[in-house]
């Protein structure tokens, strides 16, 4: 049996619910790992050690008295440090907000608290979620547990690294232009960006208002479904919140794909992709075919405009959020973030509105494609895992711009607010994980999770897990 800190929510919930294992034991196991490995990994900005143990003891007592709340009761979770806890510092990974204290919990924190979660602390992130490396100048460089010289990705890199190294059982991340899916891919774990508006953004520092999502990062698909079910649902405090009840995906996960059609847009999602990445993803596609899915080629010509439209919208909205601070205290930003914010000051109102027109037109085009397929599948990222500090990535040994290629394939689901799951589908020849992304129609989280769950059953990574951090 796996060590306690390596087990899934699903496994632990059965053992906690039956009182075979105490939440205190699980929390202590995870905290012990944090104590042993986080000085190297820098997955956390702040660890709530005493508070977590208090939460765990309270959960233990409640469960012992017959008050078991459900699968998340007593489960330790880390939360990305742009999601607010009342009366506790939330830094956004920044110097400027290094002492910021919110007056209220984020809605997702309240919902997880109601579910009985034990909060471990706040996870490291790229400053203001404005980057894809989690190389944070203020809180430390987060490292990839698979190879400590490699990047864990970002901006939710702390979440990804903590999951891959058993420094948490589950985590929350945020995703605007890939910040859940990128670290999920580089760290070999699951990352779900829900439909825009499915999960409340109240109490999460904005990156770009029309692109921001909060979502689960976990080690299994079922765990992602469990967390999604707990945090989703309408919230009047978020103006973008959909009038939808919470999802009920975990209890409805399928084990076969009979009747499911998977679309492949090869000229976009497989264009200029590293051969090892493509090999792993195609092997994953073949496994899905073996499990009953029909594979259907598709063409969506409008996808070529995603990069321009997404960049115009993301950078403009982000720079609006930060305009006053960029004007008044630019020296308090990291160099890469400051440059990104300056880029966002360039577009005109016409540029921004044209980008929104592209977005709307593309949404219709992609929506129509879901008349003939249930989901779209492709690589999450086109490049190999980059080294820490590198501005370039690698495609078949050729150097390419890392940031541009981190965003390229995750862009469509970001721009269109479609649900998207990134999950591991194999190991490259360097032993590092490769992931595929599964994109569904709006509100199609069940379809996305179903396909992911079936692929996961084939154990694409075998028994291989990150181990470099233990040496």
């Amino acid at each position, binding site marked *: 049996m796996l060590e306690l800190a390596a087990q899934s929510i699903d496994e632990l919930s059965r053992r906690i619910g039956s009182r075979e294992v105490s939440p205190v034991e699980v929390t202590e196991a995870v905290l012990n790992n944090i104590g042993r490995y986080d000085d190297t990994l820098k997955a956390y900005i702040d660890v709530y050690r005493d508070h977590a143990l208090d939460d765990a003891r309270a959960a233990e007592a409640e469960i012992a008295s017959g008050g078991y709340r459900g699968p998340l009761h007593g489960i330790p979770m880390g939360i990305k440090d742009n999601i607010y806890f009342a009366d506790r510092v939330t830094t956004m990974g920044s110097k400027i907000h290094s002492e910021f204290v919110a007056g209220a919990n984020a809605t997702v924190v309240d919902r997880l608290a109601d579910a009985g979660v034990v909060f471990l602390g706040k996870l490291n992130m790229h400053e203001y979620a404005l980057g894809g490396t989690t190389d944070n100048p203020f809180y430390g460089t987060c490292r990839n547990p698979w190879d400590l010289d490699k990047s864990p990705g970002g901006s939710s890199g702390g979440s990804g690294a903590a999951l891959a190294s058993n420094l948490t059982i589950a985590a929350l991340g945020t995703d605007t232009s890939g910040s859940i899916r990128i670290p999920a891919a580089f760290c070999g774990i699951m990352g779900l960006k829900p*439909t*825009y508006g499915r999960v409340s953004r109240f109490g999460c520092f904005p990156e770009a208002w*029309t692109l921001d999502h909060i979502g689960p990062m976990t080690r299994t698909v079922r765990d992602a479904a469990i967390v999604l079910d707990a945090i989703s649902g309408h919230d009047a405090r978020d103006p973008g919140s959909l009038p939808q009840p919470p999802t009920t995906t975990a209890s409805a996960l399928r084990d076969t794909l009979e009747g499911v059609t998977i679309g492949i847009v090869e000229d976009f999602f497989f264009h200029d992709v590293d051969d090892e990445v493509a090999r792993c993803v195609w092997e994953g596609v073949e496994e899905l075919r073996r499990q009953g899915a029909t594979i259907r080629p598709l063409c969506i010509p409008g996808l070529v405009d995603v990069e*321009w439209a997404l960049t115009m919208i993301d950078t403009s909205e982000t720079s609006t959020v930060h305009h006053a601070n960029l004007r008044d205290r630019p020296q308090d930003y990291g160099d890469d973030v400051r440059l990104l914010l*300056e*880029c966002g000051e360039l577009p005109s109102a016409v540029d921004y509105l044209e980008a*929104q*027109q*592209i977005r709307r037109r593309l949404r219709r085009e992609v929506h129509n494609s879901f008349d003939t397929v249930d989901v779209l599948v492709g690589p999450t990222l086109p490049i190999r895992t980059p080294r820490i500090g590198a501005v370039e990535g690698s495609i078949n040994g050729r150097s390419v711009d890392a940031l541009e290629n981190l965003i390229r394939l995750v862009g469509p689901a970001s721009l269109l607010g479609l649900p998207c799951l990134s999950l591991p589908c194999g190991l490259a020849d360097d032993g590092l994980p490769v992931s595929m992304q599964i994109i569904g129609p709006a509100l199609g989280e069940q379809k996305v999770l179903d396909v992911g769950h079936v692929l996961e059953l084939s154990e694409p990574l075998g028994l291989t897990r990150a181990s470099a951090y233990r040496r």
Partner: protein
Amino acid sequence: MDPNASHLRETRDIAVPAEDEAPLAAHWTKMRRLRSQVDESRLADAEIAVTWAPTGGQHA
């Protein structure tokens, strides 16, 4: 004239350090290139709002 570091200083009160001028210009050059590849017939649309309705259809 393309927006650049001087433009940001003069119109947005943003003081762009010297080391950012070249990458800023390179970024905008790339954005102009991508924009030039957009089929302008796709911009003929009166709406800009993008939200999802409960049935998954569009909702202005």
